[in-house]
C-alpha cells in the first residue's frame, strides 16, 4: 500500500516526512499536480462497476486502488507546468485527478473539501467558539461605519487579511497590524476587512495537531509585538504542555472540521489564557520541529502509514 504525497518538488518540509517513510520502507509517490499533463500522467477507467486508475511521475506508476493515504501538502495548481497553461486546462486536469482520488478508499490529510471549509476565517472563528476556545471579538465587514463602531467599542484593535496576501510582484506581506481607532475606515468599502480586538500577549503558541497527537510550542513575545511571524527578538520556540481544556477544544474542532491535521495559533495573555487566533489546516511545521525537536514529521508519517480503515 502506497502513500501519495501531493506537493511541489521544492517543498523541503515534505522531505522530512518522505525521509521518515523511506526509513520505515513505506512505499510512497511524490506527485505534483502542476506536472500534469506531461511529466506526470493519470488514467482512470469506470467499466461495469469496476474502477481502476493509475498515477505516474518520474518513471513510477501506482494504482490508485493501492493508495493507503493521501497527504495534501503543498501541491501545485494542476497543469501549471503545461506548455500552454490555462484556467480551463487546470480545471480539466484538476477535476480528473482529484475526482479519481476521491473515488478511492484512501485516508486524507486533509481532504480538499474539508480543507476548503477550514481555510475560511469566519468558519474558523465560529467553530473555535463552538469547540470551547476563547475567541477575541471579531468583525468582518465591507461597511466603514461598522468598522468605525467596532473600533470605538474595543479601542485597541488589529486588522488581518481574510484570505492571505494578494499574489503580486514584488510580493507583499500583510502582517497583523494595530489600528488607531480614529483612523479613516473608508477603504473598508473596497474589500472585506477583518478587524479583531487586540490581545496583549505574553507569548505566541503554535499547536500542531496530527491525528490525535498534539504538539504545542511557545515563543515569548517581545513588548508590543503584534504578529509573531515577523521580526526576530531573540526568542525561540520551546515545547510546552497542552492544558486539558485546550486539548479537548482542539479535538472537538478537528472533529467538527473533519480534519486530520491542523496548526493552531494562539495568543497567550498575562493570565495564561490561550486566545484562538486561527487554525491553518495546512500550516507549516518544519520551523517548530527544527527549534523544539518535537517529532511532528514522524507523527505525520505514522498517520499516513497506518492501514486504511475501509
Amino acid at each position, binding site marked *: 500500500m502506497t502513500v501519495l504525497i501531493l506537493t511541489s518538488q*521544492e517543498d*523541503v518540509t515534505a522531505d522530512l516526512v518522505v525521509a521518515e517513510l*523511506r526509513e520505515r520502507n513505506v512505499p510512497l509517490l*511524490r506527485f505534483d499536480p502542476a506536472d500534469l499533463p506531461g511529466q506526470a500522467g493519470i488514467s482512470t477507467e469506470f467499466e461495469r462497476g469496476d474502477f481502476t486508475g493509475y498515477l505516474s511521475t*518520474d518513471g513510477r506508476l501506482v494504482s490508485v486502488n493501492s493508495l493507503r493515504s493521501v497527504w495534501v501538502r503543498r501541491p501545485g495548481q494542476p497543469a501549471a507546468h503545461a506548455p500552454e497553461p490555462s484556467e480551463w486546462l487546470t480545471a480539466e486536469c484538476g477535476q480528473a485527478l482529484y475526482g479519481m482520488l476521491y473515488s478511492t478508499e484512501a485516508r486524507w490529510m486533509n481532504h480538499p473539501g474539508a480543507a476548503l471549509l477550514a481555510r475560511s476565517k469566519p468558519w474558523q472563528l465560529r467553530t473555535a467558539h463552538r469547540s470551547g476556545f476563547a475567541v477575541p471579538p471579531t468583525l468582518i465587514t465591507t461597511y466603514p461605519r461598522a468598522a468605525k463602531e467596532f473600533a470605538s467599542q474595543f479601542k485597541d484593535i488589529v486588522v488581518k487579511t481574510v484570505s492571505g496576501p494578494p499574489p503580486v510582484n514584488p510580493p507583499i506581506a500583510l502582517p497583523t497590524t494595530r489600528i488607531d481607532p480614529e483612523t479613516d475606515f473608508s*477603504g473598508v468599502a473596497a474589500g472585506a476587512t477583518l478587524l479583531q480586538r487586540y490581545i496583549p500577549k505574553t507569548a505566541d503558541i503554535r499547536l500542531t495537531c496530527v491525528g490525535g497527537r498534539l504538539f504545542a510550542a511557545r515563543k515569548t513575545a517581545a513588548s508590543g509585538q503584534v504578529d509573531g*511571524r515577523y521580526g526576530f527578538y531573540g526568542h525561540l520556540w520551546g515545547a510546552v504542555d497542552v492544558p486539558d481544556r485546550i486539548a479537548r477544544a482542539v479535538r472537538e474542532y478537528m472533529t467538527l472540521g473533519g480534519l486530520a491535521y491542523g496548526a493552531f495559533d494562539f495568543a497567550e495573555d498575562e493570565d495564561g489564557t490561550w486566545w484562538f487566533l486561527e487554525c491553518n489546516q495546512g500550516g507549516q511545521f*518544519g520551523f517548530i520541529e527544527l527549534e523544539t525537536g518535537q517529532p511532528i514529521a514522524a507523527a505525520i508519517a505514522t498517520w499516513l502509514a497506518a492501514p486504511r480503515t475501509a
Partner: protein
Amino acid sequence: MKPFALNHAVPADQSPAVIPYSYNAALQLNVLPDGRPAISDRGVLLECGTTTSTAGSKTHFDD
C-alpha cells in the same frame, strides 16, 4: 479606492536567490550538491527559510 487591509502591506521577505539543494527524483527529496539530503543540514534549512511559518505565504493560503 484601495482595500483597507492593503494600507498596511509591507514588502515580503525575498527568498535567497540561490537554493543550495535540488530535487532528486530517484530519492523523491531534495539533496545538497554533495548528495546528502537537504534536511540533514539544519543550517541550510534555517538559512533558506523554507520551513518557516511564512514560507508558504507567497504561493499558498496557509502559513
